[in-house]
């Protein structure tokens, strides 16, 4: 298994859609074959279409607000000693998280395909909020599938979704979290694929959805590359890019332009949700060595039991609370290009406390997992090491959880 150079990772799959011969694919019911094929053809076409790309760039700049800031966290770096800590503040994007890139591209594709309805899943509520924003912007009718547990714990985003005129469909099956929301959304698409477009909220699901999402979030690393060159004159010698990983869309977007670099120069570190310290449950299939399984139409490392039943997961962060992970990250793990670890709920909360104490930054619980790793390793590293954390979400949505756990927000 090997990564090829000069080809985007999203395109390094075989004709059946597998990365490294075993991750990804399209394990879908017959009914979805045609809509998935249509979408694949449309995306191939649009990707090469200059007018479409121009339109995409226009909205990325004028609607999403690219580029998002790249800044040094001076106080945190000084406090910890060791490596310099920097942040790519993707949460400054319109809506407050990286999910806006994928949502905007899906809305543009939906328009191009002449469909009037768009549906999507959401965990933390950001994917749902952004899709509802994009739907409103482009005049599409929108339904968001969300686990009942997540509706309770991510209230601010639910309010935003409804304000944008989208309907939230609560999902009561299974663990009532993201995994069930994705299943229900896919079921809805099976029944309505003739007039409805589906947006999968991360780099997961059948092959084409991994590709579209990766194509969209790659904007993050494209910006970062330019910003690094501007800040340091050239790409520094020792960089570590730290990103939280749930489905893995922000991590892929944060890394994609840097995958071809030697890992000694640019190390990629993914941080999964380790769950509560005292719980056996987690959402860390990569770092806790889950087996390969098929979930939501793709093969990836999946938290599951011996029989193949998908395990319940547990994490304070709804956005990372997912038993599977992108096939692309499985590929990056097995080729050893990226390193994956996890942070517990407690570590993420502590990281949140520390970051907000020293910096004017308000990372949501998802990137707080990435900050936890940065805080852990920074003191041991040299001053010329550049640690960059993707602060990919804003903590406004976590208001209730933070109040409860930290006593304040």
């Amino acid at each position, binding site marked *: 298994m090997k990564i090829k150079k000069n080809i985007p990772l999203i395109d390094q799959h075989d004709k059946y859609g597998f990365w490294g011969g075993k991750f990804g694919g*399209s394990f879908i*019911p017959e009914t979805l074959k045609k809509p998935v094929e249509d979408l694949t053809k449309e995306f191939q076409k649009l990707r090469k279409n200059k007018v479409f790309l121009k339109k995409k760039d226009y909205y990325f700049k004028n609607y999403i607000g690219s580029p998002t800031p790249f800044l040094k966290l001076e106080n945190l770096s000084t406090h910890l000693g060791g490596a310099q800590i920097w942040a790519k503040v993707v949460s400054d994007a319109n809506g407050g998280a990286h999910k806006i890139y994928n949502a905007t591209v899906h809305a543009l594709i939906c328009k191009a395909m002449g469909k009037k309805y768009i549906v999507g899943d959401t965990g933390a509520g950001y994917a749902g909020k952004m899709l509802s924003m994009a739907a409103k912007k482009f005049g599409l009718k929108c339904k968001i599938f969300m686990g009942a547990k997540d509706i309770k714990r991510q209230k601010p985003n639910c309010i935003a979704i409804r304000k944008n005129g989208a309907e939230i469909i609560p999902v009561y099956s299974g663990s009532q979290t993201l995994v069930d929301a994705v299943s229900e959304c896919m079921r809805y698409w099976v029944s309505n694929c003739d007039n409805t477009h589906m947006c999968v909220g991360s780099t997961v699901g059948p092959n084409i959805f991994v590709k579209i999402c990766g194509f969209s979030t790659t904007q993050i690393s494209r910006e970062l590359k330019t910003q690094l060159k501007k800040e340091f004159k050239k790409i520094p010698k020792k960089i570590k890019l730290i990103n939280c990983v749930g489905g893995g869309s922000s991590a892929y977007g944060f890394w994609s332009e840097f995958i071809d670099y030697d890992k000694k120069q640019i190390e990629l570190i993914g941080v999964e949700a380790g769950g509560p310290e005292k719980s056996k449950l987690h959402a860390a299939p990569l770092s806790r060595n889950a087996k390969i399984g*098929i979930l939501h139409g793709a093969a990836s490392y999946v938290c599951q039991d011996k*029989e*193949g039943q998908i395990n319940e997961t547990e994490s304070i962060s709804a956005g990372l609370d997912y038993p599977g992970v992108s096939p692309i990250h499985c590929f990056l793990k097995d080729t050893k290009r990226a390193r994956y670890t996890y942070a517990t709920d407690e570590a993420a909360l502590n990281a949140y406390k520390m970051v907000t104490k020293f910096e004017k930054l308000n990372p949501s619980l998802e990137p707080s997992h990435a900050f936890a790793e940065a805080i852990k390793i920074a003191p041991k590293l040299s001053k010329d090491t550049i640690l960059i954390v993707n602060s990919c979400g804003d903590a406004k949505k976590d208001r209730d959880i933070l109040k409860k756990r930290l006593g304040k927000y």
Partner: protein
Amino acid sequence: MNNSLINQSFKNAKKENRPALLTYIVAGDNSKKKSLEILKSISKYADICELGFPHNTPIADGGQIQTSSYRAIKNGIKINDVFSIVSKFKKIKNNKPIILMGYYNMIYQYNENKFISKCRQSKVDGLIVVDLPYPENKKFAIKCKKKKINFIQLISPTTSKLRLKKIIKNSHDMVYYISMLSTTGGKLKVSPQKILKEYQKIKNLNKSKNVVIGFGITEKTIKSLKKADGLVVGSQICKEITSSLKKRQNPVINVTNVVRKLINKIR
């Protein structure tokens, strides 16, 4: 596989001038013992029995079958139990074909080859894997055929003409036509005439294939599709188990009544 039990069942139904009746229940719903009893009892009226091996993340099943699946998993059903239910059933009803139906991850974790061998051992006649479409299923289907197990291809209203031809070419004795864009258990939203027209298109490609229609078929709708080679009822049966349990009645009796009514509608 000309002399397969599945083929035989269709021939027998044809002799009686009616479509074959295929029933679906989830193995282990609501317990291992009960589901075997239900299977034995309904096989008096059903021509072919489908048995689901439940998965907790089913992306193509509606509420009724989901409920049955969760119930069975909660009651501890394991894949080996599914095989043992089939074995026990076959000891009594040697001639009644059994089709296992489920999602690919369960087979993948069990190991494809081991799964197929175990099917053969316990005398499973056919397999439906919901999320392993053509052409991804090519190798698997060949493996099944070698062990004399029918791999059943699915066709849906969205299947293109070209694809349809290829699928039929790669199919074994039976082909499953999904009546409409829906998960299992949806209300029939397409007219029977239209469904039968699509059905005829499939038949015209190869008359020797037994084509069954499923999704949205209940006591109310079954008669209107009588022209098909076979008709599958699943969700209505699962629903009956759920409501029997709620009413603290014996699901074996109630489900058997439903199946008897179904067969009477198409006789």
